[in-house]
């Protein structure tokens, strides 16, 4: 079942709020995890695991390090969901 970009963004916002305390409405597409949202690499691992649970999409370490912005994650989840 394909999720829309908005649904993925909203889901990601929930995850980031839960894990890093960033309010969901501050999780906008262009935001950079490290520079804008102050999310460290350990929290990124947690976010990836939570995304796996929520979206059914695996994010291997090699891919995770390339996901620098919120949009990067949304795009990845959409692509991975399509090919699943």
């Amino acid at each position, binding site marked *: 079942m394909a999720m829309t970009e908005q649904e993925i963004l909203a889901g990601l916002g929930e995850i980031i709020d839960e*894990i*890093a*305390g960033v309010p969901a409405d501050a999780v906008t597409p262009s935001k950079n995890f490290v520079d804008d949202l102050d999310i460290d690499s*350990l*929290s990124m*691992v*947690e976010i990836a*695991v939570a995304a796996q649970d929520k979206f059914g999409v695996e994010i291997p370490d090699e891919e995770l390090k390339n996901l620098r912005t919120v949009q990067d994650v949304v795009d990845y989840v959409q692509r991975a969901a399509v090919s699943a």
Partner: protein
Amino acid sequence: MSTDQVSVVVTGLGATTPLGGDVASTWSAMLSGKSGVRPLAESWAKELPVRIAAAAAVDPATVLGRVASRRMDRYQQFALVAARQAWQHAGAPQADPERIGVAFSSGVGGMISTLSAYDTLRERGWQRVSPFTVPMLMPNGAAGWVSLELGARAGAHSPASACSSGAEAIAYGMEMIRSGRADVVVAGGTEAPIHPLHLAAFASMRALSLRNDEPERASRPYDKGRDGFVLGEGAGAVVLESAQHAARRGAEVLAIVAGVGYSADAHHIAQPDPDGAGAMLAIRRALADAGVAADQIVHVNAHATSTPAGDLPELLAIKEALGSAAGNAIISATKSMTGHLIAGAGALESVASICALREGVAPPTINVDDLDDEIATVGLDIATEPRRLRRVEHGLPAALNNSFGFGGHNVALVFTAAD
């Protein structure tokens, strides 16, 4: 009083304990003789012979918030809460970060996180083990978080000595300042040991009281019916400063950390030396280090955990070390109210010793319904209700705080009233 040594003073106090979420509520409860021991509500307690403990009055996670708490073991949460209070109490001193240090200890560290992570590993696989597990379980984590919080860069230390760790951390902090490594140090001890494993482990050693039907009467140092200690949780913290640094910024001096004495029993890995020889040595050394005469000691916060084996030797040691002046000291065994906070004990009891000096009143030892005969024979003045401290003929009034840990570690701290 030592003149060639840097004088170290206390400018802030913090605590989160079974009696209250801060120093004021904890101290007030102590003076009222309240007990922080309760039945364990958790279902796992039913399987255990010991079903009581002294849980913290205020959950530290509620103070720190959800996001901060989820990446810190409970013992680290206690430390941060207490450290913040102490820092605020000291007026959040401005100092060069490279001159601010931390010494914060724990006895068992993040065991709760360790055990929880192991369950997660076995049940859900390695990928579900939190990436924060290592920082949560490592015993130096409290010192790390406090250092991070304060931007303290002189050094962050965590000396481990079981039930004397909290006292040892304060001594370490004092020595950091004396040796010139820091001008300000946040020091303390913390423990979050309430978990079926620890209860089972201590119960297996027959170290814990089995008085499950009367929790508030279970911790009863010096009483004939004492049958072991009660496990507690929480933290105590102090801000230590060089007297000069405190004076320059006009800080209120709460007390002077006059000295420390250490020794090791070398007797048994967990049992105290019945002669109290090691304890006596530590007390003597503390008086010497502090430059304080025995007759200046008006108060002793005893280690006294309420075990049949441990309570008496400490009193023998105190009597031996203080000699003819032993009768001047009013002795309080505050674990009768708080339970045993393990690494938190030495720090919380330092805070209590300082409060006692400031107010000139010793807190009570509760539950002494029937004083043990051998203990009565030692003839020391044990406070069973709040008592005014005696005046000293010369010098500043002083308090002795003893902490002894499994492994034979003895740490005696001497505080004096502020000048």
